[in-house]
């Protein structure tokens, strides 16, 4: 295991910024297609909200944003130094 980077090291896939961009573009495209499917295919549903256009898409997106932002706020209350318990444990 070497922590220092060797010079003239092999270039890996995500070392090239255009590959990262390409991956992101694929993700955006898939999301767009999945969102548009709702306008074409009628999902049969059990619950009223499910029938809303883009329900799962919006719910997934909002859920994750809320999750992360709430967790970030939680840090203010819950976060302690790494050796918090070691000091007098």
């Amino acid at each position: 295991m070497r922590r220092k980077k060797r010079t003239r090291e092999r270039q890996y896939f995500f070392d090239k910024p255009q590959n990262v961009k390409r991956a992101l573009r694929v993700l955006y495209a898939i999301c767009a297609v999945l969102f548009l499917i709702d306008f074409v295919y009628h999902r049969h549903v059990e619950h009223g909200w499910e029938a809303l256009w883009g329900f799962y898409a919006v719910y997934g997106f909002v859920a994750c944003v809320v999750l992360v932002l709430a967790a970030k706020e939680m840090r203010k209350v819950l976060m302690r130094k790494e050796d918090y318990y070691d000091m007098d444990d």
Partner: protein
Amino acid sequence: MIWTTELPPFAPFFVGALLAWITRGRLRQTIMLLVPAAGGLHLLGVEPGVYWQLSFLDYTLTPYRVDRLSLLFGYLFHIAAFLGVLFALHVRDTLQQVAALLYAGSALGAVFAGDLISLFIFWELVAVTSAFLIWARRTDKSLRAGFRYLIIQVLSGVVLLSGILIHYHESGSLAFVYLGLDGLASWLIFLAFGIKCAFPLLHNWLVDAYPEATPTGTVFLSGFTTKLAVYALARGFPGTELLVYIGAIMTCFPIFYAVIENDLRRVLAYSMINQLGFMVCGIGIGTALAVNGAVAHAFNDVIFKGLLFMSMGAVLQMTGRINGTDLGGLYKTMPITTGFCIVGACSISAFPLFSGFVSKSLVMAAVLQEGYHGVWLALLFASAGVFHHAGIKIPFFAFFAHDSGIRTKEPPLNMLFAMGIAAALCVFNGSYPWFLYDLLPSTVNYTPYDATHVIAQLQLLFFSALAFTWLKLSGLYPPELRSVNLDVEWIYRKLAPGAGAMLSAIGHPVDSRIRRAATRRVQDFIKVLWRHHGPHGVLARSWPTGSMVLWVAVLLAVYLIVYYA
């Protein structure tokens, strides 16, 4: 070898543990692989029934009972033991190898226990044997975490035993069948199961201890203890409505912790509680579909969570690091491990064609069918969240993210094989769920792969990924930080010791006054004694030496006479 159907599944594991203890090298490796492989194949031929019953004092014990539910967990524990042994095959530490086999054997014993006393015995054996997998890390931290773990696990056993004794007193029966929540006895048993199942507020032992075990030990730990609790709940308390809400809370609260946790194995431990929540919820609903979903999800979870713990174990073993802050860019030198980790991540996130999809769907469908709409929304939130922290965070921060500069290599072949088999099982169960469905306690009339369902799930997951991407690119995503986050353990690791110290500070002056008064009493008493027994006291007058010599001579004379008479 005489191996009849009467031989309970735990026996080969205990014999194997003994053999592993006295052998070394290739021979030990062969024995260790053979035990779960042969045991599992043998179990395939075992039919439901009662195979071993005995009377002990006034009790009728049934240490070996087989039905469809215990068979499913029996197969599962053999698979988990085999994968764990294969993953740890290179380990030369006798303590770990022996403990692992004993642990797996004890869990199997508990699953096939037909009465509550046998269940209790194996319940405690599971606790004790598994603690050694934590201590085997041989660090100060793991020693302490192991003790905290053991205390809580043994406590669960003690609560279980008190519940069992009251239950026996009330009902006169020790059979481990449906119990239901009524009366003190069943509440105690419920609580004992709840501790092992990591119910909210009782969960902290899991996230405290599992990440402190050895790289291979955590893989074993993730397979048995909590799934045993799920089995016990599924047998004793199906349809208990309280479980629906407990399960819903379990799916939601750990994911917040998982987002801000730095130790990636601790992230997985939190996500484990989240997955247990789905199972607990299913058991709480209690319909055939829901219980099927719960146990099917337990089955798949052991394999995909095992796979994720294996990939993180491999990272820890090869780099010596496990914190998100220290890792990144490992895909360059560990591409195969990266691939397996992603398969595990897809499975836990319930991507179509991966195992989590076909089992979690059963629970979700049951929740919706029974009209628990709030719970359904909570589970949906948790489904998006689990993809976020386990599906994306784990592979991303370990293998991609910023390049940590660490250059390592793939783990040993046995580790890769174990991960490979687990990954194959994840894909197989996900793409061809009917094999697993046929093993479930009741018949399944559910098709996971219809267009509606697949589209809905893909929308949920891809937009979760989109949210992650957006948060990451916009800089809103909280960075990985070296830290600990307060959890319930704060009460017994900080508050209680602190309160103890405070009490002694307040109590010290009072205490010393009481002591002084007591000392004075004792001194007075000694003075009285001194007066009567002291050198000048009546009772302590010394005798002349001559009289003593005389008495010794008399004694000798008596001795001589007795000897020759």
